[in-house]
């Protein structure tokens, strides 16, 4: 543990916050009057949260889950409904803006907890199912969620939910991105994480070595789905309308593409791939628009995106199955003077 840094142990846990919070505040201030930049940052942030959280289940634990959009949907709808219910309320001892933010956090947490409960439910079958079977059950779960949402009056059926207060901000999205990355990093370095890696490498052997595989798998599902729910909640608070069409199998696959491209098990890879794959279509679209080809090519970007994702998966598996980063992390190569855990990794490629 002791890596010779001079930061007192009691402060070490706070250290990331001390750096992150001012940076986020600065970002918020910079993007204050640039709605498009705010939107881009939000959508990238939501995708990063989704990718990093899915990576905890798929990458670290090796349980291939392909229904992540279902958890996102739970979070988005529950948080949205909570916000709608709290819309007219205000905490009298706080200014209105601050009170709104408090309610926003409450809505996000409620959405996250609802998704975590669902994650618990989905994690339970993983006691008995593994591999392909588990994958298909998670897929089925995602689809069931979508159908339930589509048939529930309170969730606006197929039309979706509108009128959710647009209280999301760069700071809030950034804060949750920071939190999920921190949690993923802490898990990877902890004894919990080692158990997860062990399950990923060989479940039977891990069980034989005394790892309570079911408990760890369910925990991984709960943590992962909590953050997916929060991501959904954030999403619900900056788009004008949420409808079941945003949370299909296709969305789940987008997230899978991100973590596979980044490298299953690498948080850095998940972040880089999520940022890149989210920004690329936007960049192409504005590029085509600037070249004066609006209407035709700019519209085609969204069409072309999905086949390209498919080809990308195939080519990646043939050429570089471990993804961009494998299981390595950026902080494994950071300069020595930065506080970090040594030997947190040590998982074979």
């Amino acid at each position, binding site marked *: 543990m002791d890596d010779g840094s001079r930061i007192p142990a009691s402060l070490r846990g706070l250290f990331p916050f001390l750096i992150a919070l001012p940076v986020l505040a600065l970002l918020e201030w910079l993007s204050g009057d640039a709605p498009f930049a705010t939107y881009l940052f939000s959508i990238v942030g939501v995708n990063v949260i989704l990718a990093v959280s899915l990576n905890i289940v798929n990458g670290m634990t090796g349980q291939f889950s*392909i229904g992540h959009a279902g958890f996102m949907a739970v979070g988005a709808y529950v948080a949205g409904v909570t916000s709608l219910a709290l819309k007219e309320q205000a905490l009298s001892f706080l200014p209105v803006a601050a009170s709104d933010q408090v309610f926003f956090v409450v809505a996000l947490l409620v959405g996250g907890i609802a998704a975590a409960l669902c994650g618990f439910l989905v994690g339970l079958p993983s006691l008995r199912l593994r591999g392909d079977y588990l994958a298909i059950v998670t897929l*089925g779960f995602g689809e069931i969620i979508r159908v339930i949402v589509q*048939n529930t009056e309170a969730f606006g059926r197929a039309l979706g939910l509108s009128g959710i207060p647009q209280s999301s901000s760069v700071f809030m999205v950034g804060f949750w991105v920071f939190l999920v990355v921190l949690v993923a990093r802490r898990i990877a370095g902890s004894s919990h994480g080692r158990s997860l890696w062990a399950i990923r490498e060989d479940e*039977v052997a891990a069980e034989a070595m005394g790892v309570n595989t079911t408990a760890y798998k369910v925990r991984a599902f709960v943590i992962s789905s909590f953050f997916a729910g929060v991501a959904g909640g954030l999403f619900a608070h900056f788009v004008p309308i949420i409808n079941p069409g945003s949370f299909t199998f296709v969305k789940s696959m987008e997230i899978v593409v991100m973590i596979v491209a980044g490298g299953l098990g690498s948080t850095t890879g998940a972040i880089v791939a999520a940022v890149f794959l989210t920004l690329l279509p936007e960049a192409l679209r504005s590029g085509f628009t600037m070249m004066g080809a609006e209407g035709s090519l700019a519209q085609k970007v969204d*069409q*072309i995106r999905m*086949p390209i994702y498919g080809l990308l998966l*195939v080519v990646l598996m043939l050429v570089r199955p471990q993804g961009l980063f494998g299981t390595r992390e950026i902080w494994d190569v950071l300069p020595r003077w930065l506080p970090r855990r040594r030997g947190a990794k040590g998982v074979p490629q």
Partner: protein
Amino acid sequence: MSQLLQHLINGLAAGTIYALVALGYTMVYGVLKLINFAHGDVMMVGVYFGYSTAFMLGRAARQSLWGVALVFLAAMVGCALLGFLIERFAYRPLREKPRLTALITAIGISFTLSYGFQLDLGPLPGASPRAFPQIIKPNEWFIIGDRDVVIWNWQVLSLAIAVGLMLLLQFLVFRTRFGRAMRAVSFDHRTAALMGIPTDRIIALTFMLSSALAAGAGLLYAIKDTSVSPLMGLYVGLKAFVAAVIGGIGNVPGAVVGALLLGLVEEFVVGYAASTWRDAVAFGFLILVLLVKPGGLFGRVAAEKV
């Protein structure tokens, strides 16, 4: 009572089509231990092959037996070739890699096909659904009472084709040299190779066979639905896969039973509850079956070695 009978008939008719697609999943899984996620999309491509053949043949071929046979043949041969290409260039290089890589590749191919066919480029059909030509004129065959129970001719035809193909498959797998080689590869492909079985060729043939079956099933589905669209493969394929898993994937009779069960369950949900819940009930049924029997109804759970 007659309503129940009608639902039974419709459910069985839907189930036979699922069964044909599910057989493809089960065969490939049996031989390669690979969930061929792209199977439904191969089916979709097959329907487009049939669609363009029907158009090329024009009016002369429609509603004549030869025309219908030609449409089916073109779709099945085209799909067999597609299946061969996919196996050769996407799955074969990954055969010694972890199974997850092959699953991800299959998902990738599925996306490339289904969304690639949505593009509006040159020969590709574009996103909107097209009407499938009526190569078989719909006709009520069998009526009990005053139109209480109706069987359409395409229902009888699809049942006949499906049962025929299933019997053929059963014969092929259990009575021919190719089938014996297939079962050997499925049991242990390294040992099979040592015993002189050309495993690569057997696997490629299995793929072609399952793709051809998918094309046949897809055409039956398109005739029933009277439309064809690039995304039809995603959901039909998913349902058929669910059927195969319910029956115990890798088990030929299991796939048929699972598909018929799924067809009946879905039909009863649509008939007695609401059609919007159909997909949820199908997946709920799957999860329920898997929780009780993790290997499916007819499947066995293999013991794992450390």
